[in-house]
């Protein structure tokens, strides 16, 4: 049965939503997704060029194309251009729909979109001109640009909170906890990162450790998890396995995550207690990570044989697995004995791609494939999603495996005290494989862009509705219940 959003909107539930509201929500979701897609293509094209430069350091070594200027452009645009916009766009849709209401203000959402884009464009230009605040991961932009980003967050928080306040049920669905809290926490992070009074010398090192991990774990993680709690039940047409487990993961994530940032500076001159605290809470993070992952996987139970039939679910499944594996790996990396080998090596680059790409990007894609067709009434093509999924999955696997092995080799070279240059020479094949993985990943993004086109302005494709038939896998659950 072919169902379009137009059919559905007419029958939409809730007292405070009209067809026009649905249309506006769809355009906001579309605009954020299209914007994010642009930044994805741009930032990963830069990333690919950077990977290439490891093998050909003199290639395009001119001033505005030198490695050290493009490297922060790649990371910042991936973070603040692609991932932030993709997640916020889907979060607006989730907030409005799970609250059974319309978006509080379409205008504010547009202002937010312009501010996010303004920050990313200005940041890119500033970094390319050599205005780098000091090679501090993810906060290289000069401070006025980071204030623009902060303004975008404030607008987003206001809009989301006001939307949740309009909800038609008394309960606030868990997705909104993660989404709204994530935006509020990030406002704190961005503010702490900008204020200068406590950022001198070693004091700034303490803030860097805090900032670089909280910007990841209190921004992208809660937003992606918020999308999981909506998109996974939506696609499976089945409620989340345990709401209570989700509540537990929310509060434990809040209590444990902010404390682990110092593990980026183990063995540094930062106070010893600060480093030990970071290690302890890196281990404590296993509680929310395993509780959350188990919850998602148990929601999917009985449907594993069918997950390739639904690419939205396949993306979400990979994202959950990478969340589980990547976060657990993060805990392991925080142990002093292992950090002595892996820190400063390419292993950490592999880890950041396993989490930011395998988890966050796959979560964003899964949410877009699951929800954007519901908003616009246009499905992408099955082939397009298949190409995106397999190229991205194979690409990131090659990338992460190559850098994990290479990083270990690099670390062991240092432990054995061979001349430093030997570790550079030994990395050569792994840098090559990183480039191979990078090419596949970039090609997959072109497929994604094509799919976004078909879900929005272009001709719809042949894929079925993202929502699966609820009877699939039902017998498995019933069997469990009987047993």
């Amino acid at each position, binding site marked *: 049965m072919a169902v379009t959003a137009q059919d559905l909107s007419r029958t*939409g539930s809730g007292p405070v939503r009209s067809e026009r509201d649905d249309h506006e929500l769809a355009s906001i979701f579309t605009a954020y997704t299209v914007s994010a897609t642009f930044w994805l293509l741009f930032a990963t094209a830069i990333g690919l060029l950077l990977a290439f430069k490891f093998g050909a350091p003199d290639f395009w070594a001119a001033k505005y194309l030198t490695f050290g200027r493009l490297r922060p452009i790649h990371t910042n645009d991936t973070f603040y251009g692609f991932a932030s916009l993709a997640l916020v766009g889907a979060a607006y849709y989730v907030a409005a729909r799970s609250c059974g209401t319309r978006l509080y203000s379409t205008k504010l959402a547009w202002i937010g979109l312009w501010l996010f884009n303004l920050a990313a464009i200005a940041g890119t230009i500033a970094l390319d001109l050599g205005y780098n605040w000091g090679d501090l991961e993810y906060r290289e932009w000069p401070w006025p640009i980071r204030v623009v980003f902060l303004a975008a967050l404030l607008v987003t928080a206001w809009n989301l909170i006001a939307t949740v306040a309009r909800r038609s049920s008394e309960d606030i*669905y868990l997705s909104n906890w993660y989404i709204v809290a994530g935006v509020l926490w990030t406002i704190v992070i961005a503010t702490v990162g900008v204020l200068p009074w406590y950022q001198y010398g070693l004091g700034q090192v303490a803030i860097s450790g805090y900032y670089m991990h909280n910007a990841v774990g209190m921004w992208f993680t809660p937003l992606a998890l918020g999308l999981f709690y909506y998109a996974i*039940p939506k696609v499976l047409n089945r409620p989340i396995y345990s709401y209570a487990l989700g509540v537990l993961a929310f509060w434990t994530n809040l209590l444990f995550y902010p404390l682990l940032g110092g593990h980026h500076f183990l063995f540094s001159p930062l106070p010893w207690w600060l480093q030990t605290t970071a290690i302890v809470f890196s281990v404590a993070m296993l509680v929310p990570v395993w509780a959350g992952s188990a919850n998602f996987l148990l929601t999917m139970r009985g449907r594993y044989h069918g997950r390739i039939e639904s690419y939205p679910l396949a993306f979400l499944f990979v994202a959950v697995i990478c969340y589980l594996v990547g976060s657990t790996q993060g805990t392991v990396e925080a142990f002093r004995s292992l950090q002595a080998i892996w820190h400063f090596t390419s292993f950490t680059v592999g880890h950041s791609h396993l989490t930011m790409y395998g988890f966050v990007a796959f979560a964003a894609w899964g949410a877009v494939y699951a929800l954007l067709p519901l908003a616009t009434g246009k499905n992408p093509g099955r082939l397009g999603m298949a190409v995106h999924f397999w190229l991205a999955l194979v690409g990131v696997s090659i990338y992460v495996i190559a850098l994990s092995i290479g990083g270990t080799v690099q670390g062991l070279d240092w432990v054995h005290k061979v001349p430093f240059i030997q570790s550079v020479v030994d990395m050569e094949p792994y840098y090559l494989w990183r480039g191979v993985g990078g090419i596949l990943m970039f090609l997959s993004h072109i497929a994604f862009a094509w799919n976004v086109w078909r879900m929005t302005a272009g001709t719809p494709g042949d894929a079925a509705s993202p929502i699966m038939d609820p009877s699939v896998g039902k017998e498995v659950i019933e069997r469990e219940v009987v047993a």
Partner: protein
Amino acid sequence: MNALLILIPITLVLAIVAVGVFFWAVNHAQFEDLDTPKILPLLDAENRVQRGLSDTDSEGGRVVPEKAHHDP
């Protein structure tokens, strides 16, 4: 080591506050109903269509009507 002299009292205070907040939440029925909110994402029409329910038939299947909530 001096850090511990500050950190232990702070930790104790925080732990007491956390336990207090937890009891407040339980006593104010915050955990009474953890089943109803689960179905919020599935209340939309598109899920009912997939489940073979008509638009007006909001009581069919396992879907609970959106107005269903339990006041403490």
